C-alpha cells in the first residue's frame, strides 16, 4: 500500500529541519533587534517561571506553613517521608494508571473517530458535541455525577429495571474506575478536535486514489491519515501527558464534590494529594511536602515527555 502511494508520488518522507551547519548566523544589525525582542520575554520568563521553580525546589527541602511562618531546613526529609507515605504512593500509582489507561482509551476513541467520521456528513456537528464535555464546569459535572451514580441514582435505577442489584459506583473500590471513565469522557473531545483538524488538511484525492486501489477504511487510516497527522498526534500525546499528570477537578467532582474533606485514598491523584497538603482549610499547610510532590511530578512529567517524544519520533511525512 505504502509503495503504491509512494509510487503515485502522494506522500514522501523528508527531513525538513535544516541541519545546524546550514543555519546562517544573524547579521549584526538583526542580532541587536533579536535581543531587543527576546530580552523582555526572557526576563519575564526568568522572573515568573525559572525563579519560582527554583524557589519551589528550595521549599521542598524545608518545613514551611506558608508566607509569614518560619521556614525550617529539612534537607531531603520531605522526600524520604513521601516515599514512606502510603497515601502519597497510592496517589502516585493512581496518577500513572490514570495517565496510561485513560490515555490508551482517549487515543483509542480518537483514532476510531478518525476512521468513522472521515466521510460522515455532519461531522462538524458531531465534533462540536464530543467537544462539549471539555467546556463543562467541573462543579456541574460533580452535581450530575451524584444524580447519575449515587446508589439510588439514574444508573442504578436502570440496572434495577433489569433486575440487577444497585452498585456502589462511587464507593472506594469502584470510584477510581468511574474517574477514569469521567476523564475519558471529559478529555476525548479535545483530542478528537485536534486530530480531526489535522485530518481535514489531508487532500481528498489521496483517499480517492486509495479507494481506487481497493484500500479499506482501516488501510486508509493506517497509510494515509495516521502518517499525515502524526505530527499533531505527537503534540497531542505530550499535551495528554501534561494534562493527565495534573488531574484534579474531576476527582473532586466524583468524590467530595466540594464538601469539606479529602477524597478516599483509592481516588487520590498526586495533584489532589498536593492540594490537600497546602490548603489552609482543615489543618496547618505543609508547603514543604507539597513542593516535594511538585518536584517529583515535574521530574516524572519530563521523563514521560522525553519517552513520548522518542516513541512518536518519525521521519516527517509531507505532501509533494
Amino acid at each position, binding site marked *: 500500500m505504502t509503495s503504491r502511494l509512494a509510487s503515485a508520488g502522494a506522500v514522501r518522507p523528508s527531513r525538513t529541519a535544516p541541519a545546524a551547519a546550514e543555519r546562517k548566523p544573524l547579521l549584526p544589525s538583526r542580532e541587536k533587534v533579536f535581543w531587543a525582542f527576546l530580552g523582555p520575554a526572557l526576563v519575564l520568563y526568568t522572573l515568573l517561571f525559572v525563579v519560582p521553580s527554583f524557589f519551589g525546589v528550595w521549599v521542598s527541602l524545608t518545613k514551611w*506553613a*506558608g*508566607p*509569614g*511562618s518560619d521556614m525550617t531546613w529539612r534537607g531531603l*526529609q520531605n522526600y*524520604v*517521608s513521601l516515599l*514512606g*507515605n*502510603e*497515601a*502519597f504512593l497510592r496517589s502516585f500509582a493512581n496518577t500513572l494508571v490514570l495517565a496510561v489507561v485513560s490515555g490508551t482509551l482517549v487515543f483509542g476513541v480518537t483514532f476510531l473517530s478518525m476512521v468513522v467520521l472521515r466521510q460522515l456528513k455532519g461531522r462538524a456537528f458531531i465534533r462540536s458535541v464530543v467537544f462539549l464535555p471539555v467546556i463543562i464546569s467541573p462543579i456541574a459535572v460533580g452535581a450530575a*455525577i*451524584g444524580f447519575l*451514580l*449515587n*446508589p*439510588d441514582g439514574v444508573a442504578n435505577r436502570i440496572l434495577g429495571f433489569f433486575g440487577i442489584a*444497585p*452498585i*456502589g*459506583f*462511587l*464507593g*472506594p473500590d*469502584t*470510584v477510581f474506575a468511574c474517574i477514569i471513565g469521567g476523564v475519558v469522557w471529559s478529555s476525548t473531545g479535545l483530542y478528537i478536535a485536534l486530530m480531526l483538524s489535522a485530518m481535514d488538511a489531508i487532500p481528498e484525492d489521496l483517499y480517492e486514489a486509495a479507494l481506487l486501489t481497493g484500500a479499506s477504511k482501516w488501510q486508509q487510516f493506517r497509510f494515509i491519515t495516521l502518517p499525515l497527522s502524526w505530527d499533531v498526534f505527537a503534540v497531542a500525546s505530550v499535551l495528554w501527558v501534561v494534562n493527565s499528570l495534573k488531574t484534579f477537578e474531576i476527582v473532586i467532582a466524583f*468524590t*467530595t*464534590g466540594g*464538601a*469539606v*474533606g*479529602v*477524597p*478516599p*485514598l483509592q481516588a487520590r491523584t498526586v495533584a489532589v494529594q498536593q492540594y*490537600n*497538603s497546602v*490548603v*489552609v*482549610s*482543615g*489543618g*496547618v*499547610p*505543609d508547603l514543604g*511536602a507539597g513542593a516535594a510532590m511538585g518536584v517529583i511530578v515535574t521530574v516524572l512529567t519530563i521523563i514521560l515527555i522525553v519517552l513520548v517524544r522518542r516513541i512518536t519520533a518519525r521521519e516527517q511525512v509531507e505532501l509533494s
Partner: protein
Amino acid sequence: MKKQTVRVLTAVVLAGALATGASACGQKNNPAAERTLSYRSIWSADEPQAKILKSALDDFAQQEGVKVDVKFVGRTGGDALTTEMAAGKGPDLFDAGSDNLPAWRAQNLAAPVDDVLKMPVPGENGKTVGDLVPEALQKAASDDKGLGFVPHTAISTAVWFDAAKHPELLSSPPKTWDEFISYLDKAKAAGRTPICQDGTVPFYNVYWLYSALVNAGGAQSLLDLQKTSDAWDKPEVKAAAGKVEQLAKGGYFQPNFIATKYPAAQNDWIKGKCDLNINGSWLASEVASATPSGAQIRSFQLPVGGKESVEAGALGLGVNAKGKNAEDAKKFLAFFEQSKYQKRIAEEGKNIPARSDVPAPEALSDVQKALAGAKDVHLTYDTAAGNKAWWNDMFLPLDDQLLQGRIGADQFVQQGKQKSAQIMAGQK
C-alpha cells in the same frame, strides 16, 4: 495637528496624575479620612451571614465614621488570602474558625485579640465581650497564644432527627449506648433505615469514632493518638472503635452508604428515608431547601457515657496581624456582639449565636442547651485535623475501613498505632 493633539493629551494625563497624587497627599494629611476598615468574607453576598455582616458594617461605618470596604468572595475566593495578608496587603478582618486557627497562627497572620474580651459591647449596659461570650467558646477560639479570633457563631456536632416523625426521640432521647443501639435495632426491625450517611465524605464518617472517643474521654483523647503511640493502647480507644464496629456490623446505614455522594444522604434523611444523621450544627440550614413543611429538626448528643464532653467549635472574625487598622477592626468585633446581630445569626442565619443569652433557633436549641450545660467541652475534631498527614492520609482512611466493617476494632488499633508511629517518625 497630530503633534498638538499628543501634547494636549499628555498635558491632560499629567494634570490628572498630579491631581490624583495631590489628593492622595491630602488624604495622608487628614486623619479623619484615614479611618478605613477592610473585610474579605468567605460568605457569598446572597447568604444570610453576609447580609447580617454587611448591615453591621454599614451601621459601624455610620456610627464611627469609618469607611468600610467589604468584599464577599465566597468559599474559594479566599484561597489567596493568606498570601496577600502575609505580603501586608490583606484586609483588616477575615473569617476564622476553630478548625483553621492553627493554620492562621502558623503563618503568624492572626493578631492576638484577648484585649477585645475587655471591650464593652455597645448598648449592652457596660457588659464586655468576655461577659457575653461563654468561656467554652472563648476556648474554642484560643490556642496557647491566647484568643485568636472573636466568635460570633457556635458550632457543634450531634445526632439529628425529625421530631415530627419520631416524637419519642424528643421526649426520651437515648441516654446510653445500649439505648441508642436498641433504638437502631427497633427502627431496623420496623423496616426503616436507621441512619443516613454521606459516606464519600470521610470527614463526616469520622464523626462516629470521634464522638464515641472524645465525648467519653474528653479533650485530648483523640489528639493524643497522633502524639504518642502508647495512647493507642488505652482501653477507651478500643472501646470507641468497638462502638463503630458495632454500627458497621449492625447494618444500620443505608445500602451502599460508603458510595453515597454528599449531600444525598442528608437530604434523604430530612425527607424521611431514614431516622438519624450525624452532622454539624449547620445541617438544618444546609437541608433547608429539602425540608418538608411540618418537619421539626432536633438533636441529641451521641450517648457514650464517660465525661459526656460536648464539642464546642466557633466561627468568628480575626484581625490581620499585618493589617493597617487593627484598632477599628477590634472595635468592630465588640460592636458585632450586640444582641441585635446575634439574634439575626439565629433567626436568619439559622445558626447558634455565640452568646448563650441569645436563643438559638428551635432546631439548634438542643445543641445550645448541651453546650451550656456541658461539664466538659472539646474543640472540633479535638484539633487532631491540624496534622494533615496524620489526619487525611492515615486516620480518615483507616476510619473509613472501620465504618465499612472491613477491619474490626482490634485491627484498627493495631494498624493505627503502627501507622501513627511511622508518620510521627517522618515528621521529626
